[in-house]
């Protein structure tokens, strides 16, 4: 099943997918797209992100593939929902999307063995882990000014139950900018797979329901400009839409 969260009629609602592109509230009411605002499908706990977790992408950035997972963290300020706007600051010269499979943790786990790791996964969603490379500095890189900006990590629209994604390690990832495909890859090419990441993280920290692991992106980065509409899609999970705005639009209100 697909689960989402929206803001509607002054309240937050959990929803499920209904026919004809509509969504269903818990009490059965059906809403059409445009009548509500999408929220991230989970209230996130700790958000982990992976750098250089696809060999082709590591090569694209002129790094050799890491020997241990290159993990960084994100705060809740950076998470936003489906169909949101993300700001490209006026001084940025290279801002790129990153289409990623997002793993949502459903059970508490510490020292989880790789063989048991998939048992604590609630489901999957899609993230677009934008980076503004102008702000890269070599301190705890990728630094927060690149990766933890407000509303720079769209997530959603759906959380798809793990049971409905039988093989998360063989899903096609696609990014389209204004309808044109710019990034293609497959989760089969991850260097550290989901089970390995859960085993690694839970070896030193407790994972909790609502924690999210953004599993990295394959090659195919491109600069995005104000006005661009970016679709990041993971096969069998969902398609996340975001648009880029300039400072004047973002701060207009």
């Amino acid at each position, binding site marked *: 099943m697909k689960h989402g969260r929206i803001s509607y009629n002054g309240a937050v609602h959990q929803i499920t997918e209904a026919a004809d592109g509509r969504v269903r509230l818990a009490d059965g009411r059906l809403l059409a797209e445009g009548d509500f605002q999408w929220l991230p499908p989970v209230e996130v706990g700790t958000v982990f992100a992976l750098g250089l977790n696809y060999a082709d992408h590591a090569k694209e950035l002129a790094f050799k593939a890491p020997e241990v997972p290159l*993990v960084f*963290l994100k705060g809740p300020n950076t998470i936003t929902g489906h169909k949101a706007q993300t700001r490209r600051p006026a001084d940025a010269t290279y801002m790129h999307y990153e289409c990623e499979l997002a793993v949502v943790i459903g059970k508490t786990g510490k020292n989880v063995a790789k063989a048991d790791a998939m048992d604590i996964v609630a489901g999957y969603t899609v993230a677009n882990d934008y980076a503004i490379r102008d702000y890269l*500095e070599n301190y705890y890189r990728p630094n927060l*000014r690149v990766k933890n900006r407000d509303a720079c990590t769209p997530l959603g629209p759906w959380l798809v139950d793990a049971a409905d994604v039988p093989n998360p390690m063989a899903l096609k990832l696609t990014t389209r900018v204004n309808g044109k495909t710019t990034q293609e890859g497959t989760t089969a090419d991850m260097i550290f797979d989901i089970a390995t990441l859960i085993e690694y993280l839970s070896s030193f*920290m407790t994972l*909790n329901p609502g924690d999210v692991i953004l599993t990295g992106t394959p090659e195919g980065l491109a600069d995005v400009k104000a006005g661009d509409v970016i679709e990041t899609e993971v096969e069998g999970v969902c398609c996340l839409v975001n648009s880029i705005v300039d400072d004047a639009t973002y701060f207009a209100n």
Partner: protein
Amino acid sequence: MIKQQVSGTVYGVILNDAASVQKIGSLEEAPYKGAPKAPALYIKPANTRAACGVAVNLPGDAKTVEVAATIGLVMGRAAGRLTAENALDAVAGIVLAADLSLPHASYYRPAIREKCFDASLPLSSVKPLVDLGQLVLNTEIDGKVVDSRSLAGLIRQPAQLLADVTEFMSLRQGDVLLVGVSYQAPQAAAGSKITLSADGVGSLSFTIAGAQA
């Protein structure tokens, strides 16, 4: 008025004091290739927060831990694009914090295993905001004072730090911003009893559990 608790995300900053910048050596060569321009931040996630009296288990086969005494600014309201002039109005209070890390000499890559293990951030209760420039943080390990650190010489004072951080990321009510940790802070061994204290703020005690069987 709601008495503010630490309920959100804890952020910290490195290289915010002259002694640490001097100790790490030249920042011009690889891997750093230049002194940091923006505040160099890290996150201590929810699993790291612990209260006074906690027994901290070190991960894996770690035998020692760095104990970095610092002060956390606790946000009393949501804050974005603060200015140095108004930043402290958004601060509800402060906490005494022990930012624990497995020793790591390089700040190049995010140190998640080193800094984010469970209970690696013992925090005191929230105290009223005081002038941090007047504070000296004492670190005592097994009854012996091993470090006294004045916050008078912070490169970015709290108000400026808040302004520079919220230029690119908003903070929420209950979030905490740690004002800086010493590079290669004093180390404590498994089995140590540690107390941090500062006049006018109080103290924070915890232990590093012995090696796990």
